[in-house]
Every structure is written in C-alpha cells, then in structure tokens.
C-alpha cells in the first residue's frame, strides 16, 4: 500500500517543531506501524537524511515504551492496543497519516516523536512500591487475599505506564496512571503499611510535576492499552480523602520532612 505521512519533526526540546511530509510507498499490509516507520527511515537514510526519532522497545505491547499520536489518537486506531501492535491493514491505500508526539507540559519533547516520560518514574519513586524483607521467597498462600480484591488489584497492575492517558486527556492529567498505581497496592495486604503515605506522596508529586486535573472526560480510559478503568481515579480520590482526614487526627511521622500532609 502507498501512504503519505505528516510527521512532527523537532531537533531538540528547545527547538520549534513543524510537520514534514513523507511518501511511504510499497508498505506491506502486515507490517506493524513501527515497521512502517523503519521502512520510511531506511529510505530517509539512503538519501542521507535524518531519520525520524521514535520510542520503542519490546514491540510486543507489554513494555509501555512506544508512544505516538496517530491521527489524533494516542496509540492509534483500535481499542486496548499499543502503537507497536497497530498493523498497517487498519489503514487504506492512499491514506495520509498524521503522526505527532504525546503533548503535555510534564512530557517534554526530546526529539521528533520522542518525549521524556521520567515524570512518571519520579511519581513511582515517591511511593509506588512496597518495602518487603528480601531473601528467599515466602510461603505461597501465607497471606490470604480475597479473589475479588486480587482481581481488582490485578486489573490496576496491568498499567504499563506508557502515558497515553496523559496524552489523550484534554487537561493532561495523570490521574488514571496514579490511580492505577495507588489502587494496585491499596487493594493488597502487602500494600497496607505504606498505604496512607503512598497516596499522599504520589498525589503531591503528581501535582508538583505539573500534570493537569481530571474533569471526568474519560478520554484516558478510551485510549488505555491496558484497559485501566476510570474506577481507579474514583478510588484514588477516596484514598486521598481518607489519608488526608486521618492525617488531621493522627499525623504521619516525619510528614513535614517528607513533604506530605
């Protein structure tokens, strides 16, 4: 199939970007979207040009590294898919495809289609973990977990942290991501010791990083490749309210030093 591409090109984070047109002739139907970009890049290289920079890693839909906004939709057409799992048969011969980077202040563009998503890493580092004794694996089933809780925690844990929720949100809010990470631990017994501090720290960090605020458009849920439901945002809100209320009565030790309520 023969395609036309309109691709966002930008030298570095401080440069002004612009769209450039590329012809992509002879693309096989069963090429993935990233393979199509590889083919286009080889042609650019043959002509001595500068290839289009884009993020990718596993190319099997589980790592959360690929991004791209394809024709206005993060991760392109199809529900619950990452860009690497989008195949060219979703497009028609002669189509013009517009490819842009994720756009959000906390995700600065590094080059072309590559954005810096380390704001997510910093939110994770502020509380998205549990402290456990390292060593030999503990006895399985030593801590009983009800099936429904395990299912909900697993649904939340499916988040691959790709940032499509932020890219799709008209407010560039990260609440689906933070909600998923908070839910994942808050539902499991292992997450209980740090439950309060976790939600307080992660929300404080999310605000500090400059993400917007959820206004319940639910665009995030519609593009999420891991099918995270906006339920996690509702849970995030009540976890945050409960933790803040408890802090009024029973302050956390070293709260001021750690920058939480």
């Amino acid at each position, binding site marked *: 199939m023969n395609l036309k591409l309109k691709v966002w090109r930008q030298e570095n984070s401080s440069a002004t970007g612009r769209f450039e047109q590329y012809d992509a002739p002879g693309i096989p139907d069963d090429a993935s979207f990233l393979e199509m970009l590889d083919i286009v890049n080889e042609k650019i290289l043959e002509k001595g040009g500068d290839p289009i920079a884009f993020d990718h890693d596993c190319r099997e839909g589980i790592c959360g590294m690929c991004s791209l906004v394809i024709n206005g939709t993060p991760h392109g057409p199809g529900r619950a898919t990452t860009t690497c799992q989008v195949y060219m048969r979703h497009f028609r011969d002669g189509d013009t495809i517009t490819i842009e980077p994720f756009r959000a202040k906390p995700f600065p563009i590094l080059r072309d289609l590559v954005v810096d998503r380390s704001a997510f890493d910093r939110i994770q580092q502020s509380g998205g973990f549990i402290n456990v004794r390292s060593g030999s694996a503990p006895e399985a089933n030593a801590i009983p977990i009800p099936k429904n809780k395990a299912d909900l925690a697993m649904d939340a844990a499916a988040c691959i942290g790709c940032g499509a929720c932020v890219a799709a949100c008209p407010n560039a809010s990260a609440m689906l991501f933070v909600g998923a990470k908070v839910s994942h631990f808050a539902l499991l017994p292992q997450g209980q010791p740090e439950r309060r501090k976790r939600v307080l720290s992660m929300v404080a960090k999310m605000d500090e990083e400059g993400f917007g605020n959820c*206004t319940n458009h639910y665009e995030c849920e519609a593009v999420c490749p891991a099918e995270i439901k906006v339920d996690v945002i509702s849970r995030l809100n009540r976890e945050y309210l409960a933790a803040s209320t408890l802090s009024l009565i029973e302050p956390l030790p070293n709260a001021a030093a750690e920058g939480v309520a």
Partner: protein
Amino acid sequence: MRPLIFFLTSSIGKKYLVALTGLLLILFVVGHLLGNLQFFLPPEWINAYGHKLQSLGPLLWLIRLALLAVVSIHIVATIALALENKRARTGRYAVPGYRASTVASRSMAVSGLILLSFIIFHLLHFTVRVVPGHEYNKAVLTKDGKELPHEVEIDKHWGIPLAKDKPHVVHNVHGMMAAGFTYPAIAGFYVFGVFLLGMHLSHGAGSFLQTLGLRNDRMRSLLAVGSRVFGWAIFIGYASIPFSVIVFKHGLPK
C-alpha cells in the same frame, strides 16, 4: 491544620470542593424549579410562596450568603483547576480526536461562566427587581383561598388586583414572571441560560459521584444516561415557563 491546607490546595482537594459545592447547587436548582413550577397553579400560590420566602428575615439572608459562598467556592476552585489544566496541556493535536468526552464535558468552564452572567442578570431581574419596564407591582395575599381584608386597587395594565394596605402587600411574583417573559430578548436569554444549565448538569450530575470517590464501573451506564436525563429534564422544566408565556400567553391579561 497542615493536612487541611495540603488537602484544599491539592488537585484532588480542589476537585472535592467543586463536586461538593456542585451537589449543593444541584439541590438548589431542583428546589428552585419546584418552586417556580407553581407558576402553572393559580397566581395566589406562587405569590404566597414568594411572600413566605421573603418573610424569612435573617434566615433568608443566611441562606443567600450561604448560596453566595457555595457559588464562589465552586467558581474559584474551578478557575484554579482550569488554569492548571491550561498550563499542563501544551498545544492541541493537529488532528482533533475525541473518543469518550462530550460537548458538555468539554465546555463546562465556558457554560459555567456564561451561566454566571445569566445568574447575575436573573437576580437583577427577579430578586433585586431593577430591570426597567417590568411588572414589579404588588398583589393580594390570600389565606385558605379567601382574600385577607385589605383595600384593593385594580392594576390598569395587567388587570391584577393589587393590595394597598401594608400588612398584606406581597410581591406579584406571578405577574412579574409573566410580564418579564413577554420581552423576546429576555425570554430568549432565559431559555439560553437554562439550556446551558441543562448542558452543564448533563455532565455535572453524573460527574460529582466519580470525583467524590463514590462511583464504580457497574454504575457506568446508569450515571451516563441518568445525568443526561436529569440535565435535560431541568432544562425542559425551567424553559416550560417562558414557553407557556410566549406560546400560550399563560399568566397574561386576557
């Protein structure tokens, strides 16, 4: 105090403020509509209702100040959130793509701000009663369907009996509403205002539960449909009043 300040200045805390004040305003909007629908009953009903509300004295001012505070918090918290959202979103996509949001959800700030200007006009019109050329006369107060003893004068233009002696003088709410809506510009602005209110609520009425942390996936379709039905029912309820005046001449002198 520290946790409270942290909460109220955080993203989620401000969202809670908007949702809680929004819920209170929804309750007000429903109560106000039920009061207004007495327009379709004999004029004495709504006149007596208006008189009763105005006779609440200090309580009335307490309610008014509380409403002012609720509206102010709703607006100030929303503006703070909206400014943060604007800063977070760097530029639009070349191809606009919306998958789940609605016109109502994307225009909450705009519909809210236009509503604010409508509410200010509405208060000047029907509460402060200063929009010139309108029917702000007094009417007869009745009790148990019988007129209370008073000196009566028939209004020349509207043909409505007016009470002259002080103790039983009430605002002619019914006549004021009917007269106000005979002006197409005012009726038009009112219908536009309540249309925006209906649209604002078609998103807001389902949205506050999510923000308060009281929603789950099982309520999805119920809330999506319920809030639309609620919002547009509010619009139809309020718009029925100017509609009845303009189309059926309800409340106007025969």
